[in-house]
């Protein structure tokens, strides 16, 4: 008999697979109208039979990878096999990447010459934080409120409390009532929010601005939409780490809080799809301005490498958001920081746990 907690955990992971699958399913439709699987095509190409066949074949491959990942995760939660779980999650990442690269290779023969015209605005750029100081500081305020609540109820915190649960739903990591033990997750959360905030500032100020879009409606600028998404991520992280930070008082992550977080993610995903469709309509109205990157520099359709381009951040050609120009040393430094900072904070928090 599989314990109730294990079913919830398995259900949560499988929902993640379903959500990632839904996003990957619609990802190719989120690119600029003149781009199809990272290849410059004629604007009406997506409506052609060839494009539809290519998309269908990508989605079949994607479904196959998702099914394998789904099966591995389901088997892992049933048998309490962590290795199988890691393998299943890894498949969820690598499988779709392979499907995208294969679709890119099939789309390359349909490429048309990309525009060699480049335009830049000479007007000064805004130096404000995306969303403004008030919106950017709200996630930190959420974490501060959680910290104040913990401080006010310090005496009710047990000397030893669970902070980590295994695949079987049983606690397997504990912390003690010390400053770092109690406030550690909130500090970790603040570090993560600060990192996302810095990334948001960096992308909005250092990414390429295309003049044809700069004067268009707010929803038309990819940079603005991405900044909004990053603010959403900051709020999500603040809520998640506040809930984690309150564990010494609440005892376990309640089903209700997980449901609220999951509901927030779904509402945000729906809003994101709406913004993106409005943005794509605006791109079409703006006469399909390109993204200013040559096709040949998109390796496997996923990784941008162009030593002749000063840009560190470039718009993704598949899906939504920014990726980095791997030819720029600053991009590697940034990648290292975004990997090492969460890792360092996680190690600091975990080393405080007792097993």
């Amino acid at each position, binding site marked *: 008999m599989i314990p109730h907690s294990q079913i919830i955990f398995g259900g949560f992971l499988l929902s993640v697979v379903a959500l990632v699958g839904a996003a990957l399913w619609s990802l190719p439709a989120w690119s600029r109208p003149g781009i199809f699987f990272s290849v410059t095509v004629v604007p009406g190409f997506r409506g052609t039979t060839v494009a539809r066949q290519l998309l269908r074949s990508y989605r079949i491959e994607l479904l196959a990878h998702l099914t394998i990942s789904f099966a591995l995760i389901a088997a892992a939660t049933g048998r309490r096999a962590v290795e199988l779980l890691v393998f299943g999650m890894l498949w969820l990442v690598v499988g779709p990447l392979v499907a995208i690269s294969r679709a890119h290779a099939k789309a390359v023969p349909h490429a048309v010459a990309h525009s*060699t*015209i*480049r*335009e*830049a*605005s*000479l*007007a*000064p*750029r805004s130096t404000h934080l995306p969303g403004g100081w008030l919106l950017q500081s709200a996630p930190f305020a959420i974490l501060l409120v959680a910290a104040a609540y913990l401080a006010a109820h310090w005496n009710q915190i047990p000397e030893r409390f669970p902070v980590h649960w295994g695949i079987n739903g049983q606690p397997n990591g504990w912390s003690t009532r010390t400053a770092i033990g109690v406030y550690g997750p909130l500090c970790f959360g603040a570090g993560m929010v600060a990192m996302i905030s810095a990334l948001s500032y960096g992308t909005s100020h*250092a*990414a*390429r*601005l*295309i*003049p044809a879009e700069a*004067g268009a409606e707010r929803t038309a600028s990819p940079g603005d939409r991405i900044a909004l998404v990053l603010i959403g991520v900051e709020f999500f992280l603040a809520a998640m780490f506040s809930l984690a930070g309150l564990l010494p008082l609440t005892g376990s992550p309640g089903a209700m809080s997980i449901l609220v977080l999951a509901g927030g993610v779904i509402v945000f995903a729906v809003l994101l799809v709406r913004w993106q469709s409005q943005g794509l309509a605006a791109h079409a109205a703006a006469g399909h301005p390109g993204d*200013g*990157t040559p096709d040949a520099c998109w390796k496997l359709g996923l990784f941008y490498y*162009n*030593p*002749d*381009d*000063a*840009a*560190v951040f470039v718009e993704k050609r598949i899906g939504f958001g920014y990726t980095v120009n791997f030819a720029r040393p600053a991009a590697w430094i940034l990648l290292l920081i975004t990997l090492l900072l969460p890792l360092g904070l996680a190690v600091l928090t975990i080393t405080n746990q007792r097993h």
Partner: protein
Amino acid sequence: MANTRTLRIDLASPRPVYEQIVSGLRTVFVSGEFAPGEQLPTVRQLATDLGVHHNTVAESYRVLAEEGWLDLRRGRGAVVLDRREPKPITATKHGFARRLEELVAKAITDGVPRTALASHMAGLAKKLAKP
């Protein structure tokens, strides 16, 4: 005003990119769209927006600084200068007139209508007449 302050280059043109940037910015300065003391985008920003290497933009800014259009003092960015018009030597004046005539002849050869050319040049003359 802000929308007219754009710079356009063609990466496929046989003319080097740095020259296209110099020429584009010079045109903007001559038309008076930038007041003395105004700042241009930083080298990195303009290179990012144009999708070119920052050395290319840096070279263009250096050429414009040598011509007296820009002040590139460290820490201030690229500031537009109030450029005193130099007195041209007679040979330069004659050379320019010949080059302009050649350019007009080439445009007519390439099919640009004479009326369009005349109207464009009249517009240009009007712009130049402004102090």
